[in-house]
């Protein structure tokens, strides 16, 4: 244990769980596009599915990048703590 009150093993555990969460989000399947043949509802349903797929992929990517940033937090020093914090804080979806 250290001044951050977390062990390397516990950190590695968080990284692993976050990678699983990212993989889970990335694996979400949405229906393939339906042939709208002039149907507004079918066209819009396709749009929903496409947007859902895009945002799920973005969420998955964000979780993976969060896990990657934490995985680099191995030195457990104050400098590393602040540097990783800056990387994490600057990331994220917008």
């Amino acid at each position: 244990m250290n001044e951050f009150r977390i062990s390397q093993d516990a950190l590695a555990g968080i990284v692993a769980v976050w990678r699983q969460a990212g993989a889970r989000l990335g694996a979400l399947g949405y229906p393939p596009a339906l042939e709208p043949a002039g149907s507004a509802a079918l066209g819009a349903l396709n749009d929903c599915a496409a947007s859902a797929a895009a945002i799920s992929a973005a969420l998955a990517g964000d979780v993976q990048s969060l896990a990657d940033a934490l995985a680099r937090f191995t030195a457990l020093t104050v400098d590393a703590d602040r540097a990783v914090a800056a990387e994490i804080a600057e990331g994220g979806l917008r």
Partner: protein
Amino acid sequence: MTGIAAVRSWPLELVAPAAAALEAGADGIVAGQQQLAGALVGNDGWRGAAHDAAERRVQRQNALGLRTARTLTEAAGVGTQAAGGLLAARSALLQAVAAAQTEGFVVDDDGTARHPDPRRRADAGYLSDRIGGLLERLLAADAEFGGRLRALAGLLARRGDRLPAPAGFADPHARLSPGAAAALLAALPPDRVRDYWDALSRTEAEQLIAARPELIGALDGVPFDQRAAANRRLIRTALDARLADGEGESPRVRALRSMLAPAPGPDGTLRPRQFVVFSDEGNGRYVEQIGELTPEAAGVGVFVPGTGSRLDTVDRERGRALTLARDSGATVFVYADGELPQEIVNGGASAALRLPVFGYLAADQALSGSAADPRPAAEMAGKLVAFGAALDVEADGAAPQAPVTYIGHSYGGSVVGTAEQLGLRADNVVYASSAGTGVLDGPWHNPNPEVHRYSLTAPEDPIQWVQRYGGAVHGGDPDQAPGVLRLDTGLYADRPDGSPGEIVAGTAGHSRYLDDPGSTAFANLSAVLAGRPVTPYVRRLPDLGDPELARALIEAELPYLRDGFTGASRLGVAALHDPVAAIGCLFSALGG
């Protein structure tokens, strides 16, 4: 127009499974978010900047994930309804077409029925109306479901033309214009505003800012950089309006121009100035952020200036805060969100002279809105508490671990003290040349039990008289308050020849140290901000000074006071009988 052949080809049997897939997607996102957040909950002993930044990032992820899941669930519901409604409507249409065809009618793509036998013309007309009506009904239902799903697709894509209602809003299915969404947000507590904002795309945030900059620019819970973007619009609008009115290069116009111009930050790099509060009304209100909030920040400071500060003096206060930021490594805010008194006594010293010294009514009239009036402090303090809560949220995400320090100077000290009475949370508080400890009755209620409190008052600073005798208005002497460490004001910076500077004292000792980073007093302010060791007070001169000196000062600065008061000792006696009036006279006499 879409015809029968087209609707016959619609793969409506696949709509329900597609809707179910959207619902499954919503469930999957929620599960993913729970897994993400659960990893932190399971390690709740973890501390440090990386932990705090990760926690904040997970919150943002969660906000977007939950909004997406809610929208997907709603889309799945609409899809399910569409599957049932459209299949039934199409079935009715196709059954009618089939029945007509069985009877020998030819049905065109638009639903028109024809029969080779002219005697069936009336029947053909009836069937045309019926089939055409069923087709119209199907297309209308399709358009209606399509519109609802398109709106939801827009929310999922976060395009910004329509926005979701905040969670918990009475109509969760409402699609709001940016202006309507901004108005709803303004009624929410800061944490819910932050949750909503976290899920917005850049485009959506820009739409909200463009629709109601006056709301977003001052809305606690909105990230500070977004508030600054809104306020930049407001400053530009205010400047344009004043120029259009032919105001010319007034002090206000010059101030507004300056606020829009890039300025060097603590690292010397030119950057747009960041105002997280702005109003051009009256004397003007603002809160300016100097320096970026980052995990590397040594601290976060909020400097509350005193009497005479207003929008027109924004550059002077910025200069002081910038020097503090450079010296300490902290991010510093200048807090002037309120009508700070502009005069020691309304109408200046002559008004004080006209006071029947011990008459409360006349005193109240003359002191209203002046430095001896507690009401501006009470009004500003409530807003400072709310701003402090918003700052804590902002700092938790961007500069975790950075202690938050409030520095109240002169009348600003009374504002900070009053805010502490109202529950301001702070890690450090500095009462700098402070008029007192707060204008309300009762003790400080800072929720941080480990708050460090300091005072910084130069000897012979005229504010000493207010601290000593003005307790009825400003709360008392912070130098003597329990739990407050009085810091050394010391000396000004060394002279050019290397000899020690003068003692920080007297009338100049009230403010001059703020412009002298080489002074002991400034170094102590900087040390508190940065978390460095401070130096306790060293007595070099008496606090109140020589009464004869005070008398000389009064006589030199305001000779006409001689007939009303004979010197500081007389003022002290007057203060015992009527502190309010005496404070006004003291301020007016000594310019504190």
